[in-house]
């Protein structure tokens, strides 16, 4: 199995004609992702990497079921709402710097239609050897039984690389996105991993800001039985400063790494002190 995307995923790329869109369309196609069409308003009739480009999703003649969005922030809300209106699922939003009020509107619409949004500001999602909808370097991922969920980009590649080298392949890796308001949460993805036969254990990579990790800890304690190991970045981040991600900020005493580590501990999750400890802790648990 795997979750959310697999060999049946038939994706479009919104914003396929931009620099990022082109580059990663090729990378995804090379990886084996079934990219059916591209959409960029005003560029209908062109093609990118032999993939036909349309002005809007409704013009795509093929059967499609997922979208990945590279559209610049000022237009990303429009693109996401179009994908959601069209019922594509999941909608992966790579775009960074989308205003929060826009994201709130996107998420509300997606909720009302039961659609999974991944991101914004995410590296995307990869189910190794099946499908990749994202910008992650494919070579660090390998197929296996570890579900990986992360709010980070490069740190995720670091950990996936460690896992792969240690023979711990992944079922699916989901980048939740570094923004304060994102689509799928740790809990949403944990629920999917719970039902996924391929997934035997989960690695959760969190960071400061918000309380998504605390909520996940409670969920794991109450209703998640597979082994979970976590790493939390930002133990030493000062309050009130955004640490690279818009969502990585300790404010009003909320969102500290300590709070997250304590909650996860109570939830029975082993929390690694160093990224390199994740593999060891996971092997102990599996």
């Amino acid at each position, binding site marked *: 199995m795997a979750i959310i995307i697999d060999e049946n995923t038939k994706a479009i790329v919104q914003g396929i004609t931009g620099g990022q869109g082109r580059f990663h369309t090729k990378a995804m196609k090379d990886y084996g992702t079934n990219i059916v069409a591209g959409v960029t308003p005003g560029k209908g009739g062109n093609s990118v990497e032999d993939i036909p480009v349309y002005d809007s999703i409704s013009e795509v003649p093929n059967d499609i079921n997922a979208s990945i969005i590279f559209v610049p922030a000022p237009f990303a809300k429009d693109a996401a709402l179009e994908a959601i209106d069209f019922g594509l699922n999941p909608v992966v939003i790579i775009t960074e710097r*989308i205003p929060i009020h826009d994201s709130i509107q996107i998420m*509300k619409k997606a909720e009302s239609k039961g659609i999974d949004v991944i991101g914004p500001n995410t590296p995307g999602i990869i189910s190794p050897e099946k499908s990749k909808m994202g*910008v992650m370097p494919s*070579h660090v991922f390998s197929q296996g039984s570890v579900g990986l969920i992360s709010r980070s980009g490069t*740190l995720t590649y670091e950990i996936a690389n460690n896992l792969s080298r240690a023979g711990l392949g992944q079922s699916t890796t989901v980048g939740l996105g570094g923004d*304060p308001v994102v689509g799928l*949460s740790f809990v949403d993805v944990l629920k999917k991993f719970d039902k996924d036969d391929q997934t035997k254990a989960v690695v959760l990579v969190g960071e400061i800001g918000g*309380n998504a990790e605390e909520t996940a800890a409670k969920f794991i304690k109450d209703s998640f039985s597979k082994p979970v190991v976590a790493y939390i*970045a930002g133990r030493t981040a000062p309050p009130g400063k955004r640490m*690279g991600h818009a969502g990585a900020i300790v404010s009003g005493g909320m969102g500290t790494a300590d709070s997250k580590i304590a909650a996860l501990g109570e939830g029975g999750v082993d929390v690694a002190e160093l990224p390199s400890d994740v593999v060891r802790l996971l092997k102990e648990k599996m």
Partner: protein
Amino acid sequence: MKLHEYKAKEIFSNYGIPVPSGILVKDPNELKEFKFPAVLKSQVLVGGRGKAGGIKFADNLDEAKEKIDELLKMEIKGLPVKLVLVEAKAEILKELYVGFVVDRTAKRNVLIMSSEGGVNIEEVAQRSPDKVVKFQIDPSEGLPTHKITNLAKKIGLKGKEMVSVVGVVNRLNKVFSDYDAELAEINPLAVTPEGLLGVDAKLLVDDNSLYRHKDLAKEFAKSEEFTDIEKRAKDAGLSYVELEGDIGVIGCGAGLVMASLDTLKLYGGAAANFLDVGGGATKENMRSALELVVQKEGVKSIFINIFGGITRCDEIAKGIVDFAPKTPISVRMMGTNEEEGKQILRDNGYSVSETIEESAKEAIELARGG
């Protein structure tokens, strides 16, 4: 983007929210006449201004000038006071709280109201949860006025006062929405004999929305919220935060850089900064990053932590060799074009570590003069 109190009040007032009459001065002599007693409020973009002595009172012009002068000589949490807001001191009968924030978990904007204003709302919420009411706003429904009325009643308001508060909340909601705010807060919203008064005002605008708020965007570039190096980093498109240690840190990806800081700490070191060159950084990005980091006084070593995914290790290595920092560096490099990168560094006399841990330890030793 944090706005100064005076700016937030100006905006609130434009939306019909009552605020005290006041004058903004950057020199005591700008104050010619005023209706005393007055409150003198230093305008700095940090919290805890009151406790730090940044708010004073004056009963007449001479006293006011003297105290404004004192304030303008102060530094609050490292920020020099450059502006003082002089306001008429109101007779406060009661202090309320009204504010809008983004609830990350609910993915909704939330209205918060409390019968206890003038103090930290989070503290009130923990101490007396019954005094704080919250309402999640469904973006397709908006915030119906009758919902505000019901919340206002729950915190014990009634009659004309309740109606006035509901009016203020409606206007504040419009500010919050029009300004793409992450926080719009009136605390305290004072009840005075003359009616409601927004005695303190906070407005925090989403940085990512500034392309929709061109006027604010201009001010953001020169905001005192940031140090000079932070401003230069912004111009260079790098994500940079100034910290208090002595080891400069450069990495690719926010999570990895945070992990780098944490690792330093674990081994007894302290980072001087957080610098994320981003994914797919070029030689030039790396040069700019090093240029920024060495500008900070007291940086004794630099810890460079690269995991090459989209980023190519050889590009990073070229940037390092090109800039050739005088400050000693410790490099950890792994992933795409790892061998090429390492070779370039070794050829130029730099050593490269295999793991984050090793490299972090090396950076600490270098900082200690080792």
